[in-house]
Every structure is written in C-alpha cells, then in structure tokens.
C-alpha cells in the first residue's frame, strides 16, 4: 500500500502566500444554482436580483435546459427601487404564483444578489414569513449568492450552510458527508463506505427534503468539496466534528480521504485493502494513460473554484506535472491544509486576484497548461498558451477512484489536441 508520504523537499502549507486584490475574473456565487438545482430535485432557487443575475445564470448554464428549470430571477424594477412598491409584498406575490404553478417544489431558496444586498432587502425575514405561509408543504430558506460576498463555489457553501440550522437533532453516531456530488459519484462513494461496514451515513445536501439528515455531538463529518468553509463552521457550531483529509481526487486523494473515515470508524487495514484494492488499481491504470501526456509539463492555475490546491496536488504527485502557480480565491487552512502538506514545495501559492498582473506572470512563465475561466481561455490560446476551462472541473464527475482517469483526461486532452493539430493559425 502506498503511504501518503509528504514530499521530500517539504510541502506548501507554510509557503508564503501571495495575496492580491484587484480585478477578479470569476463568477459570483449565483452560479452554484446551475448544479444545485439539479442535485436537489424538489428545490427551487429564486434569485432576488437584477437582469444581470438572470443573464449570468443563462450564460453560465451554457446551454439552456428548456424543460422549465427549477430556478428563476425575480427581477427588481424601478418601482421596487423607488419604494413605490413594497418589495416584500411583491416577493410574496411572485412566490405564491410560483408555488401554485409548481406543486412539486418542497423547498424554496430565496437567493440574495448584489442589488438585493445593497438595497438591504431582508430575505431572512421574508423566508421566515413565507415558511409560515407555505408550511408544511414548502420550507423556505435564504442565503446570499451575491458577488459582493461570494466567489463562484462559495454559493454552494452559503446554500449548504443555510440548511445546517434547520437540520434535526440526533445523538446517534453518524457520518455526515457534505457537498453536492453527481448522483453517480455519490453512489460510488456510499458503496465504498458501505463495503467497509460504515452505513450510518447521511448526506448534505440530500436529494429530496424528505430524506432525513440530522446532526449532533456524535456526528462526524467529511467534506467532499474544498470550498465549504462556512458550512464547516456551521456544522462545528452544531457540535459535529470534522475529519480533516486531502480531498478525494485521484488515487491518493481518494485513498487518504477514505482512510481518514475508516480510521475514525475502526475499519481494519485488511478490510480497507480488500474494498479499495480493485478500484485503486483501475484508477492508477486510467491515470497512467493521461500521465504519459502530462508528465514533465508545467501547469498554472488561475483562481476559480477553490479546487485548485487539491487538483495541483493530484497533477504534481500522480501525473508528474510541475506547478508554477496555484491560485485560489480563498485558502482555509482547516480545509486545504492536508492537501498543501502533500503538494511539493516550489509553486507560488496565491490567494485572491489582480487578473492583469496574474496574466503578466502567466505570460512570463509560459506554462504548458493554464487552468483558467472561460473569459480568459480563448484569449490565452490565441497567445499560444494551452488552456483548460476551470468550470468543467466543477460540472463534470471527477471525484473518487472511478473518475480519476476522467479527471486526468480533462487536463491531458487540451495538451494532446495541441500536439495533434498540424496547421498554422494563418493571418
């Protein structure tokens, strides 16, 4: 069994972090609605915002999923701003209309935006009031996905954190697994843990409201996503204990993550080995194919989803790449520490962004692969850099053993493509 030996030259946990402020080329937290509304099948996300918010959701969704989606924007109009209309009355009317049309909706999230935060529409009060009106059929919660408060994946964090206070109490010793995963990945995760004999498992978010997730002092929780800082804090406030571990990307990350849970629940080494051996072997084989292309190449991460640090760990340790810069919108030691420990020293770790300065650094470094947002990818390609759109890492099943090869493939494909195309760009 390969042990997670820290790198010989030391890790990155204590490396100096370059902190930058300036223009950020990132999405706001509203974007999380795109995957959250697919995950929670009885939830509706109602953004209280502007035309910009609606346009963002439409553009970020890329393709329009035309079966009426379970999200929408209550667009503020001039009369709402001028105080000619009471925003709360208007909101009540829109919600009543919506719930009448969609009896399948059991939970409604009122999602705050930049404009609703700035004009201080109290969505907590609105959620409380609407809960009373529409209980018991519909539960109404609120969180902020605004750009002034959240960066991209922090929207999911804010959403999940808003659910923690309403979770039921339990004194049972249970494992709570936190983070929205594609159903197929979630099922794989549960089956691995079940095979180890761990079956007192709850999920946050659950697929439906009736799935009872509870919490208490005997709950231990593991995060499946590295961007759940507020949820982590909210769960600890409810008395639950966090199992810190590297995140389950690639063979090593998945093994370390499972190992932390197995140790907590007293699973023997023998059982652990029996359950993980076959999928680990598959994962290694699949990664090896992509690693052929990636080995010896350099990678530069622009900050996007907070997945950057665990992914840099995966690419450097399992795919043979060298990290030049690893940028993350935010770095939480409690969450990212275990991955930073394993990431070999060398790359510049950066937090926050001043996009023009960072582009200057990328141009100077000319990495073999640049991981960045959709706004930057084609412009950097046009300058001769090879890029991977970061958003795909969030929208694609990439966790755990069976997806490890797909994850490596997301990075190797642009590199392979570049070597395949035999033509000049022309004038």
């Amino acid at each position, binding site marked *: 069994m390969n042990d997670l030996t820290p790198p010989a030259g030391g890790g990155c946990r204590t490396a100096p972090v370059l902190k930058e402020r300036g*223009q950020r080329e990132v999405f*706001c937290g509203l974007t999380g609605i795109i995957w959250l509304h697919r995950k929670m099948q009885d939830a509706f996300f109602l953004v209280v915002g*502007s035309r910009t918010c609606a346009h*963002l959701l439409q*553009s970020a969704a890329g393709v329009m999923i035309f079966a009426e989606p379970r999200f*929408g924007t209550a667009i503020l*109009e001039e009369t709402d701003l001028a105080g000619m209309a009471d925003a709360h009355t208007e909101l009540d009317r*829109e919600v009543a209309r*919506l719930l009448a049309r969609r009896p399948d909706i059991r939970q409604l999230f009122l999602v705050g935006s930049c404009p609703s935060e700035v004009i201080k529409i109290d969505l907590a009060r609105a959620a409380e009031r609407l809960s009373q009106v529409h209980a018991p059929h519909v539960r109404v919660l609120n969180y902020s996905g605004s750009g002034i408060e959240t960066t991209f994946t922090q929207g999911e964090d804010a959403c999940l954190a808003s659910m923690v206070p309403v979770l039921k109490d339990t004194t049972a010793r249970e494992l709570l697994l936190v983070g929205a995963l594609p159903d197929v990945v979630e099922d794989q995760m549960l089956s691995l843990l079940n095979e180890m004999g761990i079956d007192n498992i709850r999920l946050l978010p659950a697929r439906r409201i009736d799935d009872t997730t509870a919490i208490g002092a005997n709950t231990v929780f593991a995060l499946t996503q590295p961007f759940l800082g507020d949820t982590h804090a909210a769960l600890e406030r409810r008395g639950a204990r966090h199992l810190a571990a590297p995140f389950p990307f690639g063979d090593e990350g998945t093994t370390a993550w499972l190992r932390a849970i197995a140790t907590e629940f007293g699973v023997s080494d023998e059982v652990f080995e029996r359950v993980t051996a076959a999928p680990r072997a598959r994962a290694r084989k699949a990664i090896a194919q992509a690693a052929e292309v990636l080995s010896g190449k350099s990678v530069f991460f622009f900050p996007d989803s907070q997945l950057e640090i665990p992914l840099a760990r995966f690419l450097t340790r399992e795919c043979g790449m060298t990290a030049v810069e690893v940028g993350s919108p935010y770095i939480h030691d409690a969450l990212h520490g275990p991955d930073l420990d394993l990431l070999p020293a060398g790359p510049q770790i950066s937090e926050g962004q001043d996009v023009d300065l960072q582009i200057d650094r990328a141009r100077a470094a000319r990495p073999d692969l640049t991981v960045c947002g959709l706004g930057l990818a084609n*412009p950097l390609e046009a300058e001769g850099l090879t890029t991977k759109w970061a958003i795909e890492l969030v929208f694609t099943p990439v966790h755990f053993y069976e997806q490890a090869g797909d994850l490596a493939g997301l990075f190797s494909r642009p590199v392979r493509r570049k070597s395949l195309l035999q033509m000049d760009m022309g004038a």
Partner: protein
Amino acid sequence: MKLTVWTYEGPTHVGAMRVATCMKGLHYVLHAPQGDTYADLLFTMIERRNHRPPVTYTTFQARDLGSDTATLFKTACQDAVDRFEPEAIIVGASCTAELIQDDPAGLAETMGLDIPVIPLELPSYSRKENYGADETLYQIVRTLAAPQDRTAHVTCNILGPTALGFRARDDIEELTGLLFDLGISVNVVAPFGATPSDIAQLPAAHFNVLLAPETGEAAARWLEKNHAQPYTKIVPIGVGATRDFIAEVAAITGLPCQPDESRLRMPWWSRSVDSTYLTGKRVFIFGDGTHVAAHARIARDEMGFEVVGIGCYNREMARPIRALAKDYGVDALITDDYLEVEAAIEALSPEMILGTQMERHIGKRLGIPCAVISAPVHVQDFPARYSPQVGFEGANVIFDTLIHPLVMGLEEHLLTMFRDDFEFHDAAGPSHHGGHSPLPNDGALGGDISEPTKTETGSDVLVWLADAEKELKKIPFFVRGKARRNTETFAAEKGLAEISLETLYEAKAHYAR
C-alpha cells in the same frame, strides 16, 4: 418585480460592452461587483473572440461598501489607462454600482486624463441590452465626431453592427461589396472595427447606411440632425428589400446605382418546382424587430409561406411591428417573456418557426422545425463560413437557412404515404438531419390504445375514442397539434362528448382551406 427564467436581452452594460468589444483603441471602465466579469465569456466563447473584451471591472466587494468604492473606481480607471493606453475611455456603472451612486462620470472627470472620457448613463432597472448598445454608440459619436468637409467621392458610413450581432461580420463585408458595385465606398463602419479616431471621421461621409437600427439608430439620427447626413431606412435583408435599398441609395446620392445581380440565385431557387412544397407553409416569426420585419416580407413574398404570427422582444420596435402585423392580418406579440412566446406558438401550431435560439428550443419541445434568424446569439450563430444575411448573397443564404429544417419535397409525400414505416415514421424528422431518429411509439405501429385519452377543454371533457386517436397519430407530427385542436373545437361547438373517427374527418372538412 417580475419572475424571469430566460431573457432575450442582457442588461444595459452588456450592450455597452458589445460596442466596446468590437471597437479598437477604446476601453470601458465599469464600476461593478465581483462576478459581473461573466459577461466576458459571451465574447470569448460564443463569438470565439481571441482577445479579452477591453473592460476593466472595479470588482468591489461587500467590505468595500462601507469604506471607499469611489477610490477603488479611480484606481481601476487610472490602472486601465496606464496599462492599455486607449485613445478614449467610456465609463459607467453596472446595476449594483448604479445603486451605490458613486458617479463614475464625475469621478473620471476629476482625474485629469488627457484622453476623451465618455460618461454613460444606462438605467439598469428600466432598460435593456439593445438600448445600452444604441445609447453607448450615440454617446461615443456625439463626443468624438468632428465637423469636417465631405469626401470628394460619394462615401457612406455603415452604422450599427456590434459584437454579438447576428452575422454582423459577414453583413459588413457583403454590404461593403454591394455599395462598391454601386460606386460608393465606405468611409467608416461603426462601431464594428472602428477606433475612436475613425469615429471622429464619420461626418466626412455623404450619408449613413443604418444596418442595425436596434444598436445604431440614435447615432444615425444625431448625425442626420447635426451633420446633415441622411440615413437609409431600409435594411437590405431579402431580395425585395435589397432592391428597395438600392433604390433608396440612388435617391439619396443621385447615382444611377445599377446592381450586379449575377450571383443572386434565390428567386430561381424559390420558383423552381422543387420549392412548390413550400407553398402556404404556416410560419411564426419572432426575434428583434428588424429581422422580424425583413423575414415577414421574405416569408410571404419570396418564399410563398403563410405568415400566421409575428412579434418582437424589443419594445423599442413595438410600433413598427404592430403596424406590420396589421398589414399581414395577424396579431403582433410584443413581449420579452419566452413563456408567452411559447404559448402563442403552441396555440398557432405553425409548421415552422423563424426565431431566435429561444424559439429553437421551444420548437424542439413542440416538435416544430425552427430556423434561427435573429439575436440573441449562440455559438452556432458564428459559423466559420461566409454567411451574410444582407444583400444578394444574404438572400441566397437565407433561402438555404429556411429550407434546411424542413422535410423536403417528395419526402413529405412519402411520409404521408407510408406512415407506419418503421424507419420512416413521421417522428424521425427530416432525413438529411441524421442521428436523432427516435423509435415510433406503439400507437404509430398500430398497437392497441386501450385507454381513451381525456382532454379537458374549458368545462367540457372530451373523450377521444381509440380509433380516432389512432388516426390522429397517422397525421404528420407537424400538423397534428393543429388537427387535434381543430377537432376538439369542432366537437365542442357541436356539443359532442366523444370524438370518433367520423368527428375527426368532419372537422377536417369543416376547416379545409
């Protein structure tokens, strides 16, 4: 407050970005929170632009609100000017910054920059993207256009095309060629490809060609009033419109304007017998006002379709579209609510939709073919090949675009003759669109339908008997909805509770045209 799921137009500052991004040497300093940078991907991904939009976002966050967002704006503005060295900048606020009232225009003015600073006031909570683009171009032109002599030869400007415009790139090329044939050279295209110094040269032209009224009309009007430049009112999309446009140009310039029509194939393609099947196809047209008006004329007068409904999403065009609808004897649908558009399409059951990407989705859901004729755009609306909409080549392109989604000529008859063929069933779609041939359902294969279908029509409950339901399924899918509704209306009027095979054919005779 209005609940919206999908929107036809983005916010006003995206309109300003469409102008800034297609220009050169201009930079947009936008007071905006983190996240508004999403708009960059519209240009880099949908339009595949190979450079970042020339926009600096101040990226304020919650913690900045209590302190000093004004200083943040000034710093971002100065950094942008130093780094990108633009000839001029436009400054403005996105929807959130509008609320904090920092006055970017006033702030930029106090900075003593040695380049023109053009302030934009774009009301985010009452107007939308097209207005934003139109107003931005107008402000740029108003600030920069310099009085000067006309060129010696007859020249014109082309006004209106922007980034994310529907086929703007190719329309400019086609129109420039057409004008060249008429002996007119193009002075400046604005804003697409223009620099601020090009904008200053606008008044040298003898007249303006308004290619995209949605995004260029305010500038055209201002130039007419202040620089005595007449502008063209006809947008040359379609054969008739192109010929009328040429006549309009001849009247403005006094030139003979003999166009070269040797490459115009559309009229013969439409006359040739294979096109007979197009006759009377019922089409619904929706999009921006300009493209809808052009396509209504093409549909009726050049394709021989029957126009059963028209509408537009931009209220600025409500008046001309209403007038046009009257002329066509149909109701105009002026709305930016796609659910209303979907309901209208469902009620009219057209055989084809000419619309935007939104209507393409509606058509997919309802099983009605759709050709895309207008923005909002999708990556598919930026083909690699030359694909203009204006002029004679544009007419050729549009002919192809309109027939592509349809079941063609003899294929339509074969569908009707061999309804139950396992691979040629009517849900398979046109045979030249491979790969999406679903298996027919049991009904189409002639299986029994044990449960009669109940359809509620108002307070009446109509029951379709099995044989009628089975017969209905044999009707080609693109007219089936209409047949169902007609039959139900007919039955309701006759006070029938059940629909039999006989009712179906009585209704067919009743509604026969």
